[in-house]
C-alpha cells in the first residue's frame, strides 16, 4: 500500500529497560512481548506443548507484531 505524504507518520514508543538492571540491550520491543505474556499465562497441552491459555485477540496481535518484526 503506497504511503501518501499527507498520511500521518505512525510510530511505536518502546521504553527500554535499564541496561544496568537487565544486563543486556533488547533487540525487540520487549514491553509489547511482556504485555502479551503477562496477559497470557502459559498452559500445557496434552501433547506437552506450552501455549498461552487465554489467547485473546489483542494479545494475539501483540504477539504477531513481535514475530513479524524486522530489525535493521
Amino acid at each position, binding site marked *: 500500500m503506497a504511503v501518501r505524504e499527507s498520511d*500521518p*507518520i*505512525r*510510530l511505536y514508543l*518502546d521504553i527500554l529497560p535499564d541496561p544496568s538492571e537487565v544486563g543486556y540491550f533488547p533487540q525487540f520491543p520487549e514491553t509489547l512481548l511482556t504485555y502479551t505474556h503477562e496477559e497470557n499465562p502459559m498452559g500445557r497441552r496434552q501433547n506437552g506443548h506450552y501455549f498461552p491459555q487465554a489467547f485473546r485477540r489483542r494479545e494475539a*496481535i501483540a504477539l504477531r507484531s513481535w514475530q513479524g518484526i524486522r530489525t*535493521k
Partner: protein
Amino acid sequence: MVEDFSFTSLLERGLDEERAQMEAKGEREEQQLLLTVKVMTDETFSRHAGVDVAVFDEKNSSPADPPTFRVPRHEIYSAFKSRVSQHFGYSESRVRLWALADRQNRTVRVDTYISESDPSLSSSHGFHADFF
C-alpha cells in the same frame, strides 16, 4: 437606510469570506510545513480493543488513540525524539521509536526501529526525508 444596511452587510460578508480564505490559506501553508506524527504506546495498545495495534483515524476519538505530534518538516530526528521523551516523561536514553508499516494483508504492525546511528538521520536531512 436600507442601502446602508445592504452595504454593511455586503462589506461584512466580504470580510468574512476574505478571513475564511486567509485562514484556509494559513492552514494549507501550515500543513505544508508540519508533519503529523502519531505515536502508539503500550498504554494506548492496552486500551485498544479493535483490529490492528491502534486506530490512526482522526475522526474517531478515544483514550486508545495514539497521541499526535505536529512536527516541523525540517526538524531533525533527535529533536523530535527529545520532545516525545519529554511528553511521555522518560529519559531519552530509554526511548526507542519503531516505525509501523502496512503489511501486504493490510494490517498495521511494528516494523523497524529507527536507528540513531543511521547516517541518514543526520541534521543535514530533515525529519521528513528520513521517513519517506
